[in-house]
């Protein structure tokens, strides 16, 4: 099942939640919509599901105009951030709901419904909870039941709105892995919304980065991390050092200090320089594009993080391997192994 979204616009009062969004999702893909809150990612998901309506634009699911159909007819599985399980029904009845409300002509009989629910509960590995009520489950269990419920109707596409957003870090990591293997198993076209970059990069085949109602970049997890298309993407994904620079006559300046950095093809004017923290190589004073004094050093698992006051006055944080000896008070040279400069 493919999903195609064309020039989608949605306004809430004066606020443009979606400001002209185009997106194509291929069959069997697991796509992440990644962005800060207010970027429009949930609105986009809800419009695809039929829970919200756009002011302009098109939504085409598998070649059909989805906007001509209500949420009921679209046959889309939707998983909510806060689960939205039916609190007065047992787990079994929650999963069975989609099967029980089908029109009489195509509704399965009791035995078939029972078998299907059991199959789904096995799939999410929670068959032993069938008689419990949602209030008796943990957050992670609730979300897996919500997923089983959405899958019960054999949806054409599966939409997940911040599925792990309300869970604690450990459960979240487990469920990420589980979701990826589940997707591999059932292979239904899926879109999930998240504000957690790690989650998006780890789970998805393709990542759509959104900001302020627009798509900033679409690409594989490697693409968006290694070659960010905009200053926003660079700043949002991965931990970056950001410095305000001036590009003039083929020279990049930080304050009044020219940097030994290539400036071909860059538009002159105020720009921003981005470097990943671990891409700053440490050398003796005078060896790199930057020079600075180490303020203090802390250890973070495999790396040490140093705060460095640059000679231009800015303070940056860099990550260095643990075996590189660094002490507060050292003067060091810094050379960015990789960097990007964006105008603006």
């Amino acid at each position, binding site marked *: 099942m493919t999903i195609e979204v064309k020039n989608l616009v949605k306004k809430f009062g004066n606020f443009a939640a979606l400001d002209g969004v185009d997106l194509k999702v291929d069959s069997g893909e697991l796509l992440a919509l990644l962005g800060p809150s207010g970027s429009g990612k949930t609105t986009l998901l809800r419009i695809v*599901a*039929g*829970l919200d309506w756009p002011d302009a634009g098109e939504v085409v699911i598998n070649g059909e105009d989805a906007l001509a159909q*209500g*949420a*009921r007819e*679209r*046959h*889309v*599985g*939707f998983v*909510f951030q*806060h689960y*939205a*399980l*039916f*609190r*007065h029904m047992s787990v079994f009845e929650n999963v069975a*709901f*989609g099967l029980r*409300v*089908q029109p009489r002509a195509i509704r399965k009989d009791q035995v078939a419904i029972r078998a299907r629910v059991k199959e789904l509960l096995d799939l999410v590995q929670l068959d032993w909870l069938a008689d419990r*009520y949602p*209030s*008796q489950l943990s957050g992670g269990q609730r979300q897996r039941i*919500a997923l089983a*419920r*959405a899958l*019960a*109707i054999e949806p054409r596409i599966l939409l997940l709105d911040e599925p792990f957003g309300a869970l604690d870090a450990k459960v979240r990591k487990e469920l990420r892995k589980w979701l990826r293997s589940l997707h591999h198993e059932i292979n239904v076209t899926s879109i999930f919304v998240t504000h957690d970059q790690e989650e998006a990069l780890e789970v998805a085949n393709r990542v759509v980065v959104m900001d302020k109602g627009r798509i900033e970049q679409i690409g594989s997890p490697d693409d968006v991390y290694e070659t960010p298309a905009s200053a926003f993407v660079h700043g949002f994904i991965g931990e970056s050092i950001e410095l305000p620079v001036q590009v003039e006559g083929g020279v990049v300046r930080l304050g009044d200090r020219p940097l030994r950095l290539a400036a071909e093809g860059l538009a002159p004017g105020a720009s921003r320089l981005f470097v990943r923290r671990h891409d700053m190589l440490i050398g003796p004073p005078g060896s790199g594009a930057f020079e600075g004094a180490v303020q203090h050093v802390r250890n973070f698992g495999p790396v040490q993080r140093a705060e460095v006051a640059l000679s231009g006055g800015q303070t940056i944080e860099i990550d260095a391997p643990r075996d590189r000896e660094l002490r507060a008070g050292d003067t060091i040279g810094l050379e960015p192994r990789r960097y990007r400069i964006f105008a603006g």
Partner: protein
Amino acid sequence: MTMQIADTVSLSSPEAKARARAAAARNNLRTEPQAVRIAIIALAIVFLSVFVVLPLVLVFAQAFSRGLLAYAAALAEPEALAAIKLTLVVAAISVSVNLIFGLVAAWAIAKFEFTGKTFLITLIDLPFSVSPVISGLVFVLLFGAQGYFGGWLRDHDIQILFAVPGIALATTFVTFPFVARALIPLMQEQGTQEEEAAISLGASGLQTFFRVTLPNIKWGVLYGVLLCNARAMGEFGAVSVVSGHIRGETNTMPLLVEILYDEYQFVAAFAIASLLAMLALITLIAKTILERRLEDGEESRDH
């Protein structure tokens, strides 16, 4: 034995005394002196006895003052039976109308955004802030002989005032906030996600309402209906204005109590009053049970 001796010894030690004083000081911080506590509790008990228990006991004492037979006879009077029947009919009408209205209003307010929503919420509270007599007078102004629709109603031979429709209308007006008021906060808190989930799973609007929305709010609905019913049966002011006090026809139970009392028929008056008092007691008990149910529902949601 040795243990006990040790205890006595340690109690008399200065350290233990200091500890005991500290404990006493903590107690003093936590509560008032015993005398004050007793005085406050006694005041509350006396107040409740004089203003709640005593009147209730008196109602029953007066009703049974000439014995069980006189009580039964007073209730078996055609006038009394007519009043009971009318009260039940009016309560049935106004509760059903307000149930539907309350559900629709609460649904609209809790699940949709629209302009004028705050105004609608204020409007729902109107009957609570207006004197019931005024509420009754409004219907006289509308449907009375000199009222806006009076002429038209007379031409078409439709009787609203001084008849069951007028009493039902006035009662419905006075009681309409109860169901809506009970449901609005409940439905607002529950939000729309479960309904959205139901619809995305293929449920129709009606299926969503009966399978998801209604089970979630059923205790709130019962709570609203209970209070609405209690008020509908007990309403005096508004009904008094529109009823016309036609004996055996348009007297509800509260109106009949007043009439019988004015005629010095104390046993009969208090017999009817005792029925209303019993309704109040049953309502109170049911209300307590329902409130517990509603709280349980909230707790299970918090997990």
